[in-house]
């Protein structure tokens, strides 16, 4: 698929469509949709902004590439004056007091926010079922989950309700729903895009990223959102990626993790399709290397240990004192406890309790600190790998999307389904899901801050597989 942003930009400047008509059409689709992708519509704001774009075009003024392009926002981002619920009971009436840096950059470029999108509550989930707004349905088969936690964002893009959406990825929350709904989804290098204004889940792996239907749209949106931000001290400087820079493939060696493929947990079809993709890459003269990596259960356990510890700490601020759905009780402590017990979902409570367990005296050494040590080993392993290969290719998930309801019954199975995505989060590496190669796509990973190489290889794969 070619760039929808460029196609719509062309239609706007040549007056084939008006921005107001475009926004109205998308709002109508979102309003009518039965996939449960919408937490709140930003119709008044979107139509006001669209009228301004139309006025500029009528006056013959030049508009930017993103000006007038409608997009969606996962409901964990701040956009001043609009609801930011995190799909939770606790924040169901909370209004953003300020705007996230990444979203502000898109607004400054003229893009038009249409919708706050359904997701797993506080990003806690891999299916977008852990939400007060109803389980998000898969864009391809409505009996199946949309994936998560950015499920609403992926489905909106897949069904053309938004041109692109902004998701959040802590352990795979952009890449996995992108794979489940056959679109592109990028988790950039940790820090490339400011996290300011993104509700914190696990601060050491939380990333802001785009979901779209083309590589070019991913590139355009990534460029706009990237950059160092004084409001997020972990943000990093990066260079703009030009369109020309990603046209010609320069990747010579590709690696894949042998143990991801040679195990019993992977569906035979995913395995066969992945190996067939590898063969196609080889046929193009690219060298392929098998790499050793940590077992999947170690990756998943390390990720969840650290993510739960961080979320227990991050969510301790949600006590109903200054904001949130406070439930009054006899004193302050009881008010905290009742507010949190009644308003957090079972999955969120499970993660907070798990986090407090591993941070407790007696457990922190043998679980949390050991988890940190394993994370260091994982990062060191990646450094070694990227001395040998340019790109690592992997499936996005071991299995096809589960049916709605199944993940809620078996949380351990849900955690283990993140086996192929969490390692790259722990390594803070950029990874793109492409809708090719297996039923749930392929992940392309490069060394830190090398998104350019990933997009280049994605263009190559588009013509190869």
């Amino acid at each position, binding site marked *: 698929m070619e760039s929808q942003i460029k196609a719509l930009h062309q239609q706007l400047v040549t007056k084939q469509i008006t921005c107001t008509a475009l926004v109205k059409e998308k709002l109508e689709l979102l309003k009518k949709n039965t996939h449960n992708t919408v937490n709140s519509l930003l119709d008044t704001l979107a139509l006001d902004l669209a009228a301004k774009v139309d006025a500029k075009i009528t006056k013959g003024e030049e508009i930017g590439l993103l000006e007038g392009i409608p997009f969606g926002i996962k409901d964990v981002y701040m956009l001043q004056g609009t609801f930011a619920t995190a799909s939770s009971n606790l924040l169901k009436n909370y209004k953003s007091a300020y705007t996230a840096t990444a979203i502000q950059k898109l607004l400054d470029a003229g893009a038009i926010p249409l919708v706050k999108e359904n997701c797993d509550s506080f990003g806690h989930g891999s299916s977008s079922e852990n939400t007060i707004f109803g389980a998000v349905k898969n864009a391809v088969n409505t009996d199946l989950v949309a994936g998560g936690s950015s499920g609403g964002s992926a489905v909106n893009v897949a069904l053309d309700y938004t041109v692109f959406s902004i998701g959040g990825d802590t352990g795979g929350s952009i890449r996995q729903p992108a794979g489940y709904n056959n679109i592109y989804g990028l988790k950039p290098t940790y820090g490339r895009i400011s996290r300011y204004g993104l509700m914190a889940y696990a601060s050491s792996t939380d990333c802001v990223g785009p979901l779209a239907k083309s590589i070019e749209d991913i590139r355009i949106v990534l460029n706009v959102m990237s950059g160092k931000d004084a409001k997020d001290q972990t943000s990093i400087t990066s260079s703009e990626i030009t369109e020309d820079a990603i046209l010609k493939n320069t990747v010579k060696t590709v690696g894949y993790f042998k143990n991801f493929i040679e195990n019993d947990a992977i569906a035979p079809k995913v395995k066969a399709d992945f190996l067939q993709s590898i063969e196609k890459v080889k046929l193009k003269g690219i060298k392929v290397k098998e790499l050793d990596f940590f077992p999947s259960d170690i990756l998943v356990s390390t990720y969840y*240990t650290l993510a739960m510890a961080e979320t227990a700490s991050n969510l301790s601020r949600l*006590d109903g004192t200054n904001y949130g759905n406070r439930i*009054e009780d006899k004193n302050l402590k009881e008010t905290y406890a009742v507010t949190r017990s009644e308003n957090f979902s079972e999955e969120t409570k499970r993660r907070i309790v798990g986090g*407090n*367990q591993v941070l407790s005296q007696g457990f922190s050494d043998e679980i949390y600190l050991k988890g940190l*040590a*394993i994370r260091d080993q994982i990062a*060191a392993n990646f450094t070694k790998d990227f001395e040998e290969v340019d790109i690592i290719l992997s499936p996005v998930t071991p299995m096809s999307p589960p049916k709605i309801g199944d993940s809620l019954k078996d949380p351990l199975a849900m955690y283990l389904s993140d086996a192929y995505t969490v390692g790259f989060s722990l390594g803070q590496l950029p990874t793109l899901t492409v809708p090719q190669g297996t039923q749930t796509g392929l992940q392309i990973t490069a060394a830190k801050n090398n998104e350019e190489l990933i997009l280049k290889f994605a263009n190559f794969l588009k013509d190869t597989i």
Partner: protein
Amino acid sequence: MSKIMTVDILSSIKGAQPSEAVNKLFDVIKNAHTNNNSLNNVNYNCVSVNDLREDLVVESSAIEKELIIENFPNKKNGYLVVAKIIED
């Protein structure tokens, strides 16, 4: 004097119990082999002292203040009401 705090108290969640599914994840870590030289903490996201932001007080905008007040859960006669604080 040390006081044992259970996870329900630590989490401020009534009746909270450790989950079996989560405990299975933790067992994997407990039994994992780690290299003794691995505590290098290469993942520290340190900020250089030369790279710290200016220590400035930035006044919130009027709309931001308004939204913060609007989000406050309980108000009475123009005051923001908090829960009763006790000492124990």
